[in-house]
């Protein structure tokens, strides 16, 4: 692997890790605030899973860059984060978080199936491992999409509002970054753009069955993973505060 290829791969691992980590953090904000006890437990578990997946991607990146996982997570400024804006949007109601997780779960399953065929073995192995765990996420969030979409007028209206907000943002997941193009050429990872059709087919079929209307706006507010909303700054300020205040702490 030449230096150009290696640096593209390290950056791709950052995309994967940052999406999972920031979504995990947002979901963890529901801990103790879930609408019912079972869902409080379920969403906390899903957050913990995604955090574990972020750590898995970061460990692969560490093998390439040498940067410690905790350093990358707690001592990197918002401008250096490479997550999509979808995951950094602040929570509002339960429908908002559930629908976001559903859209992300479908993306992950479609994406991981392809990454599991990567020519870079550590990436393929991690994708295969994570994919198995994700089965439980999609089962859960897909059921809630149906339940809330077909529930009451209010639950349907809240899900529709969530879908209207998330749909364009979710499309950023499929924007090809320059690193994606390098990796696709080398057979290391598929371009996310190649996943869009399958993702749209799966989500459109399921959301439509849940009596939800697919928004016509498919244009994400940004196509650059370096662009963030101010919400990421406040999220990281909170997430990183303890580590930055006590940089030598061990736990």
């Amino acid at each position: 692997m030449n230096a150009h290829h290696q640096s593209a791969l390290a950056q791709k691992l950052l995309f994967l890790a940052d999406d999972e980590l920031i979504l995990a953090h947002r979901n963890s904000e529901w801990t103790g605030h879930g609408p019912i006890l079972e869902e409080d437990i379920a969403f906390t578990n899903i957050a913990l899973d995604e955090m574990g997946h972020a750590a898995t991607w970061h460990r692969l990146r560490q093998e390439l860059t040498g940067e410690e996982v905790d350093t990358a997570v707690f001592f990197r400024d918002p401008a250096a984060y490479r997550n999509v804006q979808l995951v950094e949007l602040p929570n509002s109601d339960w429908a908002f978080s559930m629908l976001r997780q559903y859209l992300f779960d479908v993306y992950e399953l479609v994406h991981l199936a392809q990454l599991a065929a990567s020519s870079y073995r550590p990436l393929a192995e991690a994708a295969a491992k994570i994919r198995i765990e994700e089965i439980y996420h999609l089962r859960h969030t897909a059921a809630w999409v149906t339940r809330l979409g077909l529930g009451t007028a209010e639950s349907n209206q809240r899900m529709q509002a969530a879908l209207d907000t998330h749909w364009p943002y979710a499309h950023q997941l499929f924007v090809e970054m320059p690193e994606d193009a390098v990796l696709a050429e080398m057979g290391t990872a598929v371009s996310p753009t190649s996943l869009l059709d399958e993702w749209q087919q799966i989500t459109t079929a399921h959301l439509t069955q849940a009596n939800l209307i697919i928004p016509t706006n498919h244009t994400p507010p940004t196509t650059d993973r370096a662009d963030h909303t101010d919400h990421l700054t406040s999220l990281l300020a909170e997430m990183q505060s303890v580590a930055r205040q006590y940089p030598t702490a061990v736990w």
Partner: protein
Amino acid sequence: MITTTHIWQALEEVKDPELPHVSVVEMGIVRDVQLEADRVHVKMTPTFSGCPALDVMRHDIAAKVRELGFTQVTVETVLHPPWTSDWIADSARDKLQQLGIAPPIRHGGNLIPIAFLDVATCPRCGSSNTILKNAFGPTLCKSLWYCHECQDGFEQFKAL
């Protein structure tokens, strides 16, 4: 002269912190033990990637090998082949049952039908007149069930 067999035996004493009495060997977490001169290399694999007990187990495995007198001990985390609940030994399944946790159903590599089947046998009374209350439980590896016969809840170790 200590052999790898002794090291495997010692590792039987390292327990999963979230499942007291069940060892990391019975859980299928320890995949390989290599002994070369005075160096020991242990390969372990995570059950659920986000399991907070993994670091504790990694630490406990290294500490246990050091207790045998080895100073050069490395514990490597491997992801391939991915851990499956099918690797949980029969001895561990019995212990789970005694702890009131229904053991996972063996799926032989075909997880999806099992993950959606929603069948569990009550570890107390053996009834299958049970219902899934929550696919997520107190730890990543457990789901929550209710037994209509006992009229009480129980946990099941999730198939993976």
